[in-house]
């Protein structure tokens, strides 16, 4: 059955009217179509031909879905960039990923695998973790709510962050501030790292369908591809892997889109090895999904459930051990989280596009010199390398 509308991420029930649902669907549809157009333009510049695009809008473009398959794409929640810099599982890596600054500076800089978190600590000298809140909600959704349903936005902030929040805390006049204190230093509601956007996700998928060649050979390596096509940060886990899988499907001849509802999701968490102070394993409900659904969560909280004791005594998250290590940083949990998006492939073999050259070489865009065209989509930020 053809898709008639794009739904909100995880089909969350924030929209209270058909108008809101239709408006969001239009937004996503425009986003996807603009990426299809950009990809076609890139192909045209590179080949001087008008070629069909292997990335498509599932609502506006009818495709033969007889051979439709879904391809889940998973990646790790903890920033690969920090693991490379400081080693894996090291205190330095976990410490670098988060801080207590009012602007959540470390989160804005380093938490770039489409998962962000905020750590709440107690007032003991050890400053033990009480709660870690995770989100993978794209800023576009919240800007949409701010524009079209500001009361809903306010209610969500009050429900999930602080009941005392006022509209003036979130808006400057009528302008929503995504970096407001209740989404940075004093709370977390949605993604703020500049590259963690739905637009970036769609952009990677759309641009990754273009086959690339370098020195006469078609590229198949994840690292070589992302550096050639420049569709994301090659230092991450997410971007190279998403592009790798999508490009592989495209090279095989599929047409590809993102599965509705388009979003970024927490797929699951590995809690083996997490133990209460008495050494017994914690149960799954220590990681509580607050928005979204199991397997496609948008917001989750890690904390000790109310009433839980260990050896007869109450305890907090910071008393939990993961293997032999005490839980001291939210990143230790992020490391165990698997993120997900899902692609849809169909019409195998219908489109056969040639491979084109790399972006920086100018061959990809038919331009001399090394300057890359700026494929800008309103409301979406393209790859911006984070300074070290």
């Amino acid at each position, binding site marked *: 059955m053809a898709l008639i509308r794009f739904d909100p991420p995880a089909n969350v029930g924030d929209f209270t009217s058909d108008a809101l649902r239709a408006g969001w669907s239009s937004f996503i549809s425009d986003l996807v179509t603009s990426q299809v157009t950009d990809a076609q333009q890139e192909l045209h510049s590179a080949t001087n031909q008008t070629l069909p695009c292997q990335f498509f809008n599932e609502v506006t473009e009818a495709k033969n879905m007889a051979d439709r398959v879904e391809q889940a794409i998973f990646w790790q929640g903890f920033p690969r960039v920090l693991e490379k810099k400081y080693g894996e599982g090291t205190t330095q890596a976990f410490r670098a990923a988060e801080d207590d600054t009012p602007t959540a500076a470390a989160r804005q800089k380093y938490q770039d695998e489409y998962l962000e978190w905020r750590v709440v600590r107690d007032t003991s000298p050890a400053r033990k973790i009480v709660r870690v809140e995770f989100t993978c909600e794209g800023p576009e959704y919240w800007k949409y709510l701010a524009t079209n349903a500001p009361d809903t936005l306010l209610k969500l902030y009050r429900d999930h962050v602080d009941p005392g929040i006022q509209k003036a805390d979130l808006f400057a006049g009528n302008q929503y501030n995504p970096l407001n204190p209740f989404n940075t230093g004093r709370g977390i509601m949605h993604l703020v790292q500049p590259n963690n956007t739905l637009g970036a996700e769609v952009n990677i998928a759309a641009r990754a369908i273009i086959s690339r060649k370098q020195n006469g050979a078609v590229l198949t390596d994840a690292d070589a591809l992302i550096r050639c096509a420049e569709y994301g940060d090659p230092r991450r*886990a997410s971007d190279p892997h998403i592009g790798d899988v999508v490009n592989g499907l495209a090279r095989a001849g599929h047409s590809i889109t993102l599965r509705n509802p388009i979003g970024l999701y927490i797929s699951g968490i590995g809690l083996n090895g997490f133990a209460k102070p008495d050494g017994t394993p914690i149960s799954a409900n220590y990681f509580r999904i607050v928005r979204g659904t199991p397997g496609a969560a948008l917001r989750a909280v890690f904390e000790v459930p109310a009433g839980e004791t260990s050896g007869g005594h109450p305890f907090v998250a910071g008393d939990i051990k993961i293997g032999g290590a005490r839980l001291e940083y939210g990143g230790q949990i992020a490391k165990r989280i698997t993120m997900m998006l899902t692609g849809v492939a169909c019409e195998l073999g219908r489109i056969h596009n040639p491979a084109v050259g790399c972006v920086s070489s100018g061959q990809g865009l038919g331009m001399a010199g090394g300057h890359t065209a700026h494929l800008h989509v309103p409301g979406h930020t393209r790859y911006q390398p984070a300074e070290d």
Partner: protein
Amino acid sequence: MAAPLEPVLDVNEIQGNSLAGFNKDYQTLVFVQIRDAGKFRPWLKSAAPAVATLAQVNAFNRLFRSMAAALDDDPQGLSATWMNLAFSSRGIRKLVDLPVEQQLQDNSFQSGQFQQSELLGDPPDRSGWKVGGSEETEADLLVILASDSAAALKARVVAVRRGLLNSKAVKILWTQAGATLPGDLRGHEHFGFRDGISQPSPRGRVSEQPQDFLTPRAFADGDERSLRFARAGRRLVWPGQFVLGYPRQDDADDVQALDPVEYPEFEPEWAKNGSYVVFRRLRQNVKRFWDFMKSEAAALAATPEFAGWDHVRLAANLVGRWPDGTPVVLSPGGPDGALVDADRINDFTFREQDEAGLRCPMSAHIRKANTRDDPVDDGGPRRMLTRLVLRRGIPYGAVEDDDKGLLFVCYQRSIAAQFEFLINHWANAEELPRAGSGHDPIIGQKPPDRARTIHLRTASQGNPFGVVRTIPIPNDFVEATGGGYFFSPAASVLKRWGG
């Protein structure tokens, strides 16, 4: 592209089992608890000169290879007996008082394998473990003894044990013998499969001579393959992945080493030339393995997609190789003697030859443990090269024994990023390294609440991804019955600790 300059390894400092490997038919592992550090030091001082260095082991291995090449057979009568030493974090703490900034940085090592056990998927009840199953039975010191001669090894084991006991400083927790299996199973493990085929080839030179490589090279300078391969199918990996203080593999560049200025090493200076060593005593339930293969293959063979499948074919698909080592991805229908010579047996890719897992299941052990060119959740295949470990294990137990299996020993620069990652993040995960992987059918340990599952795919008209058959594996074939995390320091460090 010019070949990168490979570092000169400190062959008199690095213990020989790491980069070169003892490669002996007989090994005995002795697990020791230090009771009195003051009395232990003289033993260590006396033992240190007998610790086999990379220089010694490499010299022997080269001699062995040159004679074998001339004879086209193993040389008779050429024998060496080696010893290497490795300490756990508690063992090191007993011997030296290191300030915080001088301590080893791997948190998993510092916790010790007992604490990390559940992360590896081990069940909570480890009372049956021979060593390392409780805090009281964790070893402080691992003595690795190996020899070409069973008699020589036995004599050395007796001497080492006597020396340790005479020191009145230790308790010997466990002495574990291992040996290459006899007859047709030579080079195979107890399920019957040829083992240890795929090892990373460490880069590095053993002298200042520009071509004096530790790992022999089959491709001439100027041959493009020489940039990445020691010989066909043998990837070159920077030695810093296995020994501290050397250039490391870059997860974004499969030829040039990681820039040490942009990515400094965090381990302390004294740890240079040392390696982290993981030991796992893996008991293999051979009867359960083959009973499962037989009953499951019978069920499969009744379906049209798997008609003709027998227990060996099913087992081969779950391992990723036929018992003789033939890679299933190259020969899905059966073993092929032409594909088991040294240059063919490891010369294959997965994604390039079998994107959808129709020839070799994505669940296959060798595809889960070494993804080669498959897409992976943590970035790209070049990152896989940073995950590889050097395996130095050996079977234990006779074929007719009930308690038999593998003494798994591996060397790496980071237990967290290499051994534990491979086990916890990939082997025991159902949807990693990518969707459709399934759990590792051979070494995976089942989650507490359900069976492991694996997926077989067969080609199907009109479906490029094939038809999936999901098979639950209710019980594990391999269980850990002993373990430990150790650090194998440089020779001079051993001397210093001995006082």
